[in-house]
């Protein structure tokens, strides 16, 4: 248990997205709209917002947003340092930490993305150095594929685990009118017909990229209670990685190579172990999971790292479409469609869906969901996850 447990809650959410490159306005305008909508959802005036947390960079810092919004006072502005989408949950955790420590009272965790403002396509020269680029390794797909191939071939995780994660997401998206794959169901044959991108990844193993913005508004648990909304309490939040786990994946300890970054390291129990310890919750007690799929393989590794799915060949028996599908599956995953079938605003839309499950508002609602896990971007040099709970879990 920790000071964080149950002390804060998400009381307002907003998310919207467009096909990549088609946003009618810029990133800042989208972020501001998301923040206003999250405030309206919570019934809190935007003037009261006093903190801003984000991840993966961008120009929309706390002071910039504070000025636009005309808030009463800025008390907190933080960016998760490193890890790109791996820091998605960590931004929420930072908001919770700011509130718990008395630094701020009403903090928004957000992400906005538009191809026009911060184009992510093409090979990322800023990220991969001359020990990667001459060898055709130029994108996150390459680095994640390298780890995933060993997860499959060495650890014995069947490729069906990746496929079924994708098929479950597509099944969920058929109930989500705002999902990119709404009305476009995917079966096994369709999945296998997807063009190979970087083996072992096919087209449908890969995340979408969208323009859009997402915001989550956090306040103290006491204030959440006064608001009278069905709040998603932060039961635990963690970030990090075992020492030596990094994007430079060529010489780290072999035992952590196929981890998504949440698993135990050579000398510590790891990121996910900290989450369960903080929350006082066991993996078997989680009702529903939103897991960031930059690619399907790293998402499977995330579930393994969190103890939600058996490692090795056993992953194949667990990762069936039936088990992963709401409302009755053993572990419904990515119930709005996830990054592959709904939308991708650097994965933060998944956090909103995790909150919706606690509020009972998902289009694929898991009956009686009391604990809801959001796992941020896997196989990044820094990863993060956050466990939400209903009031009954406090």
């Amino acid at each position, binding site marked *: 248990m920790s000071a964080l447990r149950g002390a804060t809650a998400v009381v307002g959410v907003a998310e919207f997205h467009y096909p990549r490159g088609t946003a009618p306005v810029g990133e800042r305008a989208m972020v501001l709209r998301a923040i206003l909508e999250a405030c309206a959802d919570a019934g809190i005036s935007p003037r009261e917002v006093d903190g801003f947390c984000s991840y993966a960079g961008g120009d929309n810092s706390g002071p910039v947003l504070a000025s636009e919004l005309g808030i009463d006072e800025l008390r907190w502005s933080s960016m998760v340092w490193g890890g790109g989408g791996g820091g998605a949950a960590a931004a929420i955790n930072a908001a919770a930490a700011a509130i718990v420590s008395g630094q701020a009272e009403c903090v928004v965790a957000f992400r906005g993305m538009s191809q026009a403002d911060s184009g992510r396509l093409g090979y990322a020269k800023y990220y991969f150095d001359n020990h990667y680029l001459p060898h*055709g390794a130029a994108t996150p797909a390459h680095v994640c594929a390298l780890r995933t191939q060993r997860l499959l071939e060495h650890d014995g995780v069947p490729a069906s685990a990746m496929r079924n994660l994708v098929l479950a997401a597509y099944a969920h998206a058929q109930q989500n009118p705002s999902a990119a794959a709404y009305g476009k169901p995917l079966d096994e044959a369709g999945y296998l017909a997807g063009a190979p991108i970087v083996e072992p990844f096919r087209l449908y193993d890969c995340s979408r990229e969208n323009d859009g913005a997402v915001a989550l508004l956090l306040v103290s648990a006491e204030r959440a209670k006064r608001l009278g909304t069905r709040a998603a309490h932060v039961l635990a939040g963690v970030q990090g990685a075992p020492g030596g786990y990094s994007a430079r994946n060529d010489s780290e300890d072999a035992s952590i190579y196929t981890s998504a970054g949440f698993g135990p390291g050579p000398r510590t129990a790891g990121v996910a172990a900290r989450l369960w310890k903080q929350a006082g919750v066991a993996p078997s007690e989680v009702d529903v999971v939103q897991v960031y799929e930059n690619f399907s393989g790293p998402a499977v590794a995330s579930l393994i790292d969190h103890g939600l799915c058996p490692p090795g060949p056993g992953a194949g028996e667990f990762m069936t479409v039936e088990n992963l599908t709401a409302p009755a599956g053993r572990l419904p995953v990515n119930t709005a469609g996830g990054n592959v079938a709904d939308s991708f605003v650097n994965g933060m839309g998944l956090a909103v869906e995790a909150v919706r499950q606690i509020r009972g508002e998902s289009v694929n609602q898991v009956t009686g969901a009391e604990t809801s896990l959001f796992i941020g971007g896997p196989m990044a040099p820094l990863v993060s996850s956050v466990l939400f709970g209903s009031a009954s879990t406090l």
Partner: protein
Amino acid sequence: MARPAQSSTTLPLPCGPASDEVDRPYWDGLRAGRLLLPRCSDCGAWREPGRILCDGCWSFAVDWAEVRAAGRIFTWIRSRRDFMDDLDVLAPYETVVVALDDVPVRLLGLLSDDAALEPEIGQAVAGWIDEPANAAWPVLRWTREGDR
């Protein structure tokens, strides 16, 4: 699908020492036909090129020692899209992480042999030094053929 190699639009291949030159002996070694890797002067631990500090004893001191370019495939991927065709890296191509036989270091590189031969983890590979026309420095490639 692929653009022709060495056309007028070919860009220089990113290669050569980092701006802080911390890995310069690696690149100088390739130019001299040798694989040189950094080794801690104090405790003898091997590093990968580019690392400044020994993570075992925190020494900055380093020697560069010649290592046999031989190892086994630790993991591999096959790129099927033209991610880098403007650099004349044409799809499909295979990239391997090689666990070196003689030192506990892994190196990433292109697999340059028979594309019909499916890669497998554990396969033995040997390094050879390539000098692409659009590269200012030599680069290390890997093959499952040839003299080991």
